[in-house]
């Protein structure tokens, strides 16, 4: 659902301004959906001249034309009701209970939303600024650093990246050594290694990208003697990517032993996004792009991954993997997943009746019967592929 709402906002933003960045499109979409009506109303006040305004909406006229006759009519109806019992009986028979005010409010809200969506409006200053900013970094001539300060900054960068590269090489060697011994470790050790390793990686990548962005924020990009600094930066990015692959491997080992969970899939996703972040940072430094390039590309790729991830039936994937490939299976975890894996679990119990405990088998049976019941109660609008399996 989150992806659908996000996509709707981005679609609206794209219709408004296809050239703008994806996050600006998102904000434009949100603004259009929630406030287009108010913004357009405000614009109307500005665009109308006073004379036109007077001509177009004369509230007093409409009050006189509708309000006064309505009020008078009501008074006379009340008077006639008490004067004539037959008239009173007819009036009493008028039943307005079919008007459901909640339904009216719901419809008005729907009209408000559709009215906003069909009349999109953009956040003007934000969109204009975004369109003006290109991805290329421009040499700052007015506030340029002196040659001496550039040399000093370049030297600091070289020293820092030499130290960081040495440290990460040493860390990688110890990590590879650790992986070679990992077969002797218990589940809790492996879990601790993967999770703590990932938390540490999150911080280290944020620092890594921040340090790179700091050094390549301005005129150092155009400094003629920055070749060594660039090479060391590329080396550091490559070593960081190598570090990600090692963590990937650790998580893979963990998954092959104990199966998939959403958290472990999340770790894979995060590691994938980290590689993308580092690659885009590499491109930024190599092609002399600015910070906006990083934001634009990374948000685009993250959104693309989100869309792709929604096309995968994760519950089925987790269940299939955990029951067929993983060395140990946590059936209770699989039972608490959505109904999507019910048929797979049922098949698993039928194939291996003695594999789980009797309680687990009973829980799977209960889940299966509940799901079958639910499928049978569904209307034709709710039919899914699973309904066919019940016949």
């Amino acid at each position: 659902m989150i992806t659908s709402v996000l996509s709707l906002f981005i679609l609206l933003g794209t219709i408004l301004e296809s050239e703008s960045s994806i996050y600006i499109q998102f904000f434009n979409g949100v603004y259009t959906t929630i406030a287009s009506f108010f913004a357009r109303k405000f614009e109307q006040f500005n665009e109308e001249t006073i004379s036109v305004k007077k001509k177009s909406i004369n509230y007093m006229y409409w009050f006189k034309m509708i309000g006064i006759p309505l009020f008078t009519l009501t008074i006379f109806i009340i008077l006639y009701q008490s004067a004539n019992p037959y008239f009173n009986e007819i009036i009493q028979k008028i039943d307005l209970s079919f008007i459901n005010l909640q339904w009216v409010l719901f419809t008005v809200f729907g009209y408000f939303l559709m009215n906003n969506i069909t009349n999109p409006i953009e956040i003007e200053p934000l969109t204009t600024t975004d369109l003006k900013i290109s991805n290329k970094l421009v040499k700052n001539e007015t506030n340029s650093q002196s040659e001496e300060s550039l040399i000093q900054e370049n030297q600091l960068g070289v020293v820092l990246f030499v130290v960081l590269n040495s440290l990460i090489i040493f860390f990688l060697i110890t990590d590879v050594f650790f992986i070679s011994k990992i077969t002797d470790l218990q589940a809790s050790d492996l879990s601790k290694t993967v999770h703590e390793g990932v938390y540490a990686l999150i911080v280290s990548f944020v620092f890594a990208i921040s340090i790179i962005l700091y050094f390549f924020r301005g005129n150092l990009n155009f400094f003629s003697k920055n070749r060594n600094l660039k090479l060391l930066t590329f080396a550091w990015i490559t070593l960081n990517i190598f570090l990600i692959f090692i963590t990937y491997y650790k998580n893979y080992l963990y998954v092959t032993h104990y199966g998939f969970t959403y958290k472990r899939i999340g770790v894979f996703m995060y590691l994938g996004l980290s590689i993308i972040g580092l690659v885009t940072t590499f491109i930024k430094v190599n092609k002399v792009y600015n910070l906006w390039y990083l934001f634009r590309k990374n948000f685009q790729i993250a959104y693309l991954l989100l869309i792709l991830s929604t096309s995968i039936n994760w519950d089925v994937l987790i269940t299939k993997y955990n029951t067929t490939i993983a060395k140990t299976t946590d059936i209770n975890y699989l039972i608490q997943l959505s109904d999507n894996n019910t048929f797979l679990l049922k098949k698993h119990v039928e194939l291996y009746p003695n594999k789980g405990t009797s309680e687990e088998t009973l829980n799977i049976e209960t889940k299966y019967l509940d799901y079958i019941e639910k499928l049978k109660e569904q209307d034709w609008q709710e039919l899914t592929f699973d309904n066919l399996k019940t016949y």
Partner: protein
Amino acid sequence: MNIILNTITTAAKAALLSSGLLTLAFSSTQDLYNYDLVMIFFISLLITFFISIGMIIFTVLPFYYIEYERSNTRMMFKKFFPYYTIVCFSCCLFIIITQNFEEISILLFSIAYVTAAQSWVWFFKPKKNELNNEKTK
């Protein structure tokens, strides 16, 4: 722009709007007599008037004072209104979610959002003399 007068008139309009919506919503959700609805309308009118004044003073006027020397009301509206509505909507949505989508919270915070957004339109709406000045420029 006469700030005090504008604040009071905007607060009065906002109070009328929110009280009207609230009474309408109550009449559809609660089994109340007409007398109760009239009472609800007048009590909420009084409460929302003071809330609206507070809301304008704390959430609208600061934006006005940041920009009033540099630009006109139209520019102020264009500059700040989008962010204000997004933040206001997010806060209302957040509260509705934390209240587990209870009917009463959806009702109250939807009305609060609509009133807050409409108050901006009323507050920054150019006055007739401002329009005339712009036309003559």
